[in-house]
C-alpha cells in the first residue's frame, strides 16, 4: 500500500469514525444461548440500553429465574441473581427490601411468571413491590423444548398438547396484563411487541418507563412482551412474527392496561 493511499484512508477513518452502534455497557460480551431469531436477544438489549441511558448499572440488581433467560446472569454487567422457577418476584422482593435505593428487575418467561410463579407474581404486584418485571410471553416453554404454556393459545399444538390446546381439559390462556391491572399495587402494566422497528422503539419506551416508575417509588411495573419462539414453534424468524401477529396479538392486544401516572393525569 502506498503512503498516499494510506494517509487518505486514515483521513477517511477520522471523518467517519463516529460510533453509530455498539453493545450497551450493561451487556457483557458473553455469547447468549438464544436461538437465532428469538425475541429474547432484542428485549434483553433494550433492557441494557435503558440501564445505560438511566446511568443505573452500578445500582441495579437483575433476577433471572428458570427458563431460556436463566443464564442472563452472564449477559448483564450489573449484579445478577439466578432464581428458582417462578420465584423471581419473591427473590426480587428480598433484594429490594434490603436495598430500597437500588433498582431491581426480574426477567421472566410465561411458564415462570404465569404458571409456577403466579402466586409470587400476583402478591408482589398487589404489595406494590417496587420492582420492574420484564415478561416474555411466547406462548410456549422454550428451554424444555416446547411444551404447552399457561399462555398457549386455544388449539395451539405443542409437545404436551399434540392435538392442540383443548380448552375443555386444559382451560384457557391467561391474559396477564389484564389480570394484574386490577390490583392496586400495580403502577404500570403494558403489553408491547418487538416485531418491527416502530414496535421495538415503543417497547423500549415502555421498559424505560417501568424502570423510571420504580425509581420514583410508584409500585410494581410489568412490561409484557409478546414474543416469538421460532425453534419450538417450527417457523423461520419472519414467519414466526407473522404467526404471532395473526394469532397472538388478537388474543393479547397491545396497549397500556394500567398507568398510575396517566390515571392521575400526570402525563
Amino acid at each position, binding site marked *: 500500500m502506498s503512503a498516499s493511499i494510506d494517509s487518505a484512508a486514515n483521513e477517511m477513518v477520522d471523518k467517519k469514525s463516529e460510533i453509530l452502534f455498539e453493545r450497551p455497557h450493561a451487556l457483557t460480551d458473553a455469547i447468549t444461548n438464544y436461538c437465532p431469531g428469538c425475541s429474547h436477544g432484542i428485549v434483553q438489549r433494550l433492557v441494557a440500553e435503558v440501564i445505560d441511558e438511566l446511568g443505573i448499572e452500578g445500582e441495579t440488581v437483575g433476577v433471572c429465574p428458570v427458563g431460556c433467560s436463566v443464564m442472563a446472569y452472564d449477559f448483564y454487567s450489573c449484579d445478577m441473581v439466578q432464581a*428458582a422457577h417462578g420465584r423471581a418476584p419473591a*427473590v426480587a422482593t*428480598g433484594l429490594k427490601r434490603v436495598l430500597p435505593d437500588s433498582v431491581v428487575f426480574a426477567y421472566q418467561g410465561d411458564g415462570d411468571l404465569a404458571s409456577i410463579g403466579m402466586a409470587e407474581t400476583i402478591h408482589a404486584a398487589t404489595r406494590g413491590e417496587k420492582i420492574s418485571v420484564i415478561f416474555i410471553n411466547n406462548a410456549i416453554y422454550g428451554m424444555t423444548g416446547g411444551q404447552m404454556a399457561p399462555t398457549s393459545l386455544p388449539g395451539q399444538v405443542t409437545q404436551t398438547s399434540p392435538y392442540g390446546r383443548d380448552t375443555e381439559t386444559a382451560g384457557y390462556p391467561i391474559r396477564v396484563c389484564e389480570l394484574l391491572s386490577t390490583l392496586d399495587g400495580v403502577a404500570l402494566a403494558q403489553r408491547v411487541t418487538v416485531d418491527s422497528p416502530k414496535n421495538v422503539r415503543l417497547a423500549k419506551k415502555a421498559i424505560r418507563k417501568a424502570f423510571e416508575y420504580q425509581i420514583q417509588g410508584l409500585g410494581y411495573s410489568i412490561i409484557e412482551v409478546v414474543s416469538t419462539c421460532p425453534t419450538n414453534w417450527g417457523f423461520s424468524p419472519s414467519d414466526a412474527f407473522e404467526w404471532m401477529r395473526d394469532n397472538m396479538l388478537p388474543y393479547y392486544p397491545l396497549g397500556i392496561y394500567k398507568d398510575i401516572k396517566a390515571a392521575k393525569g400526570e402525563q
Partner: protein
Amino acid sequence: MVEKVLMKGNEALAEAALRAGCRFFFGYPITPQTELAAYMAKRMPKAGGVYLQAESEVAAINMVYGASAAGARVMTSSSSPGVSLKGEGISYMIGADLPAVIINVQRGGPGLGGIQPSQADYWMATRAAGHGDGHVIVFAPSTVQEMADLVASAFELGDRYRVPVMILADGMLGQMMEPVALPEPIDSRSLPEKEWATNGHGGKRTHNIVNSLYLVAQQLEDTVVERSQRYARIKDEEQLAETYLTEDAEVVLVAYGAAARISRTAVAKARELGIKAGLIRPVTLWPFPVDTIETVIPVAKSFLTVELSMGQMVEDVRLAVNGRSPVSFFGHTGGVIPTPDEVLVAIQKAAMGEQFDLVPYHTRLTGGAR
C-alpha cells in the same frame, strides 16, 4: 450479672435474632411458631427492619434468598409442614452459598400431622433439607436460654461458611416460658462486608453473580466438592454437645431438645437406683457430635437414644458407635411426650445389655421389645 427476663422460647429466638443484627424477617403463619412472627411484626419496624408476611412458605424462603444475596442477615421461621415447602429454597441457598437462619419449631407429622411438640423432622433437617448434595448446619436448643444463645452462633457460622443454618426446636421449647439472659446486641455495621453480595457494583468492581446453575458437569462437581471441603471443616470444628454424668456412665443416653430435658431427669432417677447412667445432649445435630460419642465408648456398655419420633437420630448414634455397643431406642411420637419414668424403664432395660427399639404400643401394652 445480666438481668434475666421471662420469655417464651419463640420470643427469645426472635429477640436474639434482632440482637444478632438481623433486620429482615420473612414468614408465613403456622402453629406452633406463631409467637416468633408476631414478635418480629411488633419489633422489626421499631428496630428499623423489615417484617414481611409472605404469600406462602415458598415465597418466604425465596425472599430470604434475595435478602441474603443482597448481603443482609435474614431469618425465617416455620413449623414442620411449612419447612417441607421451604425445601426448594433451602436447596437453592445451599447451591448458591447463601447464609440465613431458618427456624423449625417442630410439630407432629407426616402430612398435616398435629400441632403438639415433636422431633420427627430430624431426617429432613440433617439429611434432606432440599434436593441435591448438600447440608445445612443444624442446632438443637433445649432451653429458652439456649434458644437465645444459639441464634447468634447460627448467624455467625452461616456467614463464616456461607451455608444456611437451621435451628431445630419443637413446640414445647417454643411455647414454654423460662428466665433468659439475653445476649448483648451487636452493631450490624460492625459485621464484615460480604464481598460476594449482589448489592450493586457501584462501578467499583465487576458484577457479582449469585447462582446455583452449572450446566457443565465438571463445573458442578467442582462446586459441590469445594462445598464439601467446607462441610469437612464444619465437621472438624463445629460439633457441639453437652454431657451429663457421662464420665463413669455404663448406660449412655443420647437425646436432644425437649427429649434431653426428660432424659436428664430419668438419668438422675437411674443414678438413685444405682444405675450408672449418663446423657449426651447433641447441640449440633449436623455436624453430629461423633467426637463426644467417642469419648464415652471406653466405659459405655450400652446406648439409649430417646426421641419424640419413631427413631431418627438413633441412626446417627448407631453410625457413631459402629457396632461397639448395643444402641437402643425409646420414643413417643405424634405429640405424645414420654415421662421420665417411661425413660427410666428403658434405661433399666438398656442396663441389661440388650439392644431394643421401644415404640409406643409395645411400651404401653406389652412393655416388650420389637
